[in-house]
């Protein structure tokens, strides 16, 4: 059994898999340890598939914009799987003046960061998506946003990393990290002790326990998110969709089915079951929400609903950083539900950081030590 490598990555979601892939591509040896039995079983396979810049916190924008420019367009070719990436824009819809206010604020912030996003009126919205209901009075529009298939993308990174010799172990839960002489060194699992000079923690919410154990505290909590999927329908539209109120988001997949996420308002109070399970109220609630925007979908049959947990950060921003106090320790977590779109860029930049000490995108705003008290 292989227990040492140039880098050990903890977590085999899209972030862990992409980090491992880009490291291996640079010729480094990598071990990936995954606690569950499955690759990409957390948020990576439980999200709406958005590859989106608009509506993001300005701190995340530089990395996300970099990813949309440099990673996503060629990713299918690079991984040899169909990531189903479609860069056909993102509509963030509003039905009330209050909605438009929220959207305008987000848009102004994004424009300041150099993103090409604008507010459009009801008739412009209808031109882009004629199926929307008349209740929609405006939207923000970002033409360079899009969506992709989280399942094939995550597994594509895994497949490609594995081809390059990355050693994946699933059902291998890391219980703690050990430092030796002030540097990161040991990764402890019930069955073996793994050793490396570089350790990347990319374990979603579970990163918290591991990091707490070495005195690094990232303020995040575990929050349930739910989605539903319809049967395949004839192709209707290609944009990614969201709403000012975040009452639903999603897109139509290449397969024809619609994937929509939404909120009941009670996600925060869900009982934390070992397996994320749908709540009984979600699918009904989301259906009502969706039909308000798309009355035409009333006959679409829901074939399944699912739930996942996100690692929600206090400031709702990802943490992608090296840990100064513990040389060799890197962290990619607290993606707050944005991990799919931004994950590959995070993985690429972390790999660069480990290999060269530099990153092509500005990840300074995503540092682990950014958290200050309110007063």
């Amino acid at each position, binding site marked *: 059994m292989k227990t040492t490598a140039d880098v050990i990555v903890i977590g085999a979601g899209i972030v862990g898999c992409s980090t491992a892939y880009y490291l291996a591509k640079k010729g480094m040896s990598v071990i990936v340890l995954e606690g569950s039995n499955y690759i990409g079983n957390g948020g990576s396979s439980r999200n709406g598939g958005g590859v989106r810049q608009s509506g993001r916190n300005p701190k995340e924008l530089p990395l996300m914009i970099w990813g949309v420019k440099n990673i996503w367009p060629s990713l299918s070719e690079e991984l040899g799987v169909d990531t189903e990436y479609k860069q056909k824009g993102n509509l963030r819809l509003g039905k009330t003046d209050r909605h438009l206010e929220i959207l305008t604020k987000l848009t102004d912030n994004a424009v300041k960061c150099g993103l090409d996003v604008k507010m459009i009126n009801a008739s412009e919205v209808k031109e882009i998506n004629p199926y929307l209901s008349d209740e929609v009075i405006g939207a923000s529009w970002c033409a360079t946003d899009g969506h992709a298939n989280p399942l094939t993308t995550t597994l594509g990174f895994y497949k490609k990393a594995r081809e390059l010799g990355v050693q994946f172990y699933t059902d291998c839960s890391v219980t703690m990290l050990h430092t030796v002489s002030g540097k990161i060194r040991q990764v402890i699992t019930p069955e073996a002790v793994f050793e490396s000079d570089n350790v990347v923690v990319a374990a979603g919410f579970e990163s918290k326990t591991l990091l707490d154990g070495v005195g690094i505290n990232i303020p995040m909590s575990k929050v349930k998110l739910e989605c539903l999927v319809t049967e395949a329908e004839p192709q209707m539209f290609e944009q990614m969709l969201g709403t000012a109120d975040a009452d639903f988001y999603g897109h139509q997949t290449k397969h024809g089915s619609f994937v929509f996420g939404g909120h009941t308002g009670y996600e925060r109070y869900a009982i934390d*079951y*070992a*397996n994320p*399970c*749908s*709540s*009984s109220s979600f699918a*009904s609630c989301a259906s009502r929400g969706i039909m308000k925007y798309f009355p035409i979908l009333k006959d679409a049959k829901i074939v399944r609903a699912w739930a996942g947990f996100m690692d929600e950060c206090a400031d709702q921003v990802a943490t992608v950083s090296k840990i100064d106090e513990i040389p060799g320790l890197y962290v990619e977590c607290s993606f707050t539900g944005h991990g799919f779109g931004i994950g590959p860029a995070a993985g690429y930049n972390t790999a660069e950081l480990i290999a060269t000490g530099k990153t092509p995108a500005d990840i300074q705003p995503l540092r682990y030590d950014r958290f200050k008290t309110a007063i």
Partner: protein
Amino acid sequence: MKRYNLIVVGAGPAGLCAGIEAAKRGMSVILFDENEKPGGQLFKQIHKFFGSKEHKAKIRGFKIGEQLLQEASAAGVEVKLNATVTGLYPDKEIMVMHDGKMHDGKMHHYKGDSIIIATGAAENMVPFENWTLPGVIGAGAAQTLMNLHGVKPGNRILMLGSGNVGLVVSFQLLQAGCEVAALVDAAPRIGGYGVHAAKVARTGVPFYLSHTIIKAEGTDHVTGVVIGKVDDHFKTIPGTEKHFDVDTICIAVGLSPMSQLLKMSGCSMEDNPRRGGEVPVVDEYGETSVPLLFAAGDVSGIEEASSAMIKGRMAGIRAAYELGFCKENETENSLEKCAADLGSLRQGMFAPGNKGKLIEKTEEGIPVSMNLLTNGFVAEDEIVHFPGVTSQKGIHPVIECTQNIPCNPCQDACVKHCIKIGSHITSLPVVENPAPCTGCGLCVASCSGQAIFLVNENYEPGFASVTIPYEFLPLPGKGDKGKGLGRDGKPVCDAEIVDIKSIPAFDHTNLVTMKVPAEFAMKARFFKAV
């Protein structure tokens, strides 16, 4: 949200029995089924059941369904049909779609203090070339079409699978007026009860064991099928291909528990080949790792409907006990009785523990008919060894029951006590010699396996009479002439119908008596008009 002491999902034998026991003990019980009719698969089971009186033996499945439904409504179970349970959520909550035709067309939420999942099983399938062609159907689909909807699944049919489902459905296809071209199984031996095989074989359906389907033929729908012999590793042997012109191929290769709701609930599951696939981990009463969530019937392990009824009862009683609806003493007695009934069903050659084993001798030490296991009928030199087969003066029953199965209605059917099984339910029936038989025929109609015949070797000088159970249309008429068919379904002699008896006590099993040359008294077992 509405709340009940017990929610039962599935109105098949297990679900109905569970609901009955719980309601009898004072629980508020609601039972959901997505179908228009209750009874689950019972309503497609038009054959008589095996077992003893306690197991409702010799009653046809669909009648048992009707009985259970009456019991359930008498006990106060609220049965909601056309109501699909779409999900089982934490805290024993379910979501139900109430069909718009019978109900309000809305989604309803219910919570149960306890829940019993009795969703039954789904058919397994096996892929072969062109298996997606229209005309390749599940055996259950055939049953549904002909027994529920009165539509023939096809005109000429090939059956894949020799388990009880394959055998019983083949017989039902014949009853519906379809032709069964062949019965095929990759296994080297017939999987179901020998008596079920024998009643199909004697009508002339050929059995091809150690054979599998190579491909279905046709472009838009099935027009034929090619089968081939398989070797010990289930690989087809080139050069053994056989073609049949058929319009339908039926697949009967076993059942899998329909455990989706249980998987959703988060209870511990296991993949247990002996129980038929992915099943919940349950205790002896069917309770899962989630307290007060039970699984009963096929969803917790594939067995017969008779076992499902008992497993349902046990879950219902146990739920009532745990929620304080019945006393420990009464609970123990009831559960012990159930366990005993279940135990008696799980005996004999087909007991769960004997799955896959080749049994060479009966409990009585008689060599098991190998011909029965490979061709579907007992050979003439084998049949004489069995205690139900005697040669006597005058009319007497001949019982061609050659495997130890838990079944004894024939013993009670004979008021003259010609037939003895004794207290051990799997023992082979013994015919007294001499038998004080009056020729009433009640034993013939009572045999769920249609394995009892009345033979009078001295019917007329040079002629014997053979009375056979007959459940086909058209019924032959007195004086009709035809051929007597052997156990293998091949014509052996001329035969003339001399008597037909159809009385209500026979429950649709007609007794047809044919006159055959005396030397064919122990050979002719079916009649075919010419």
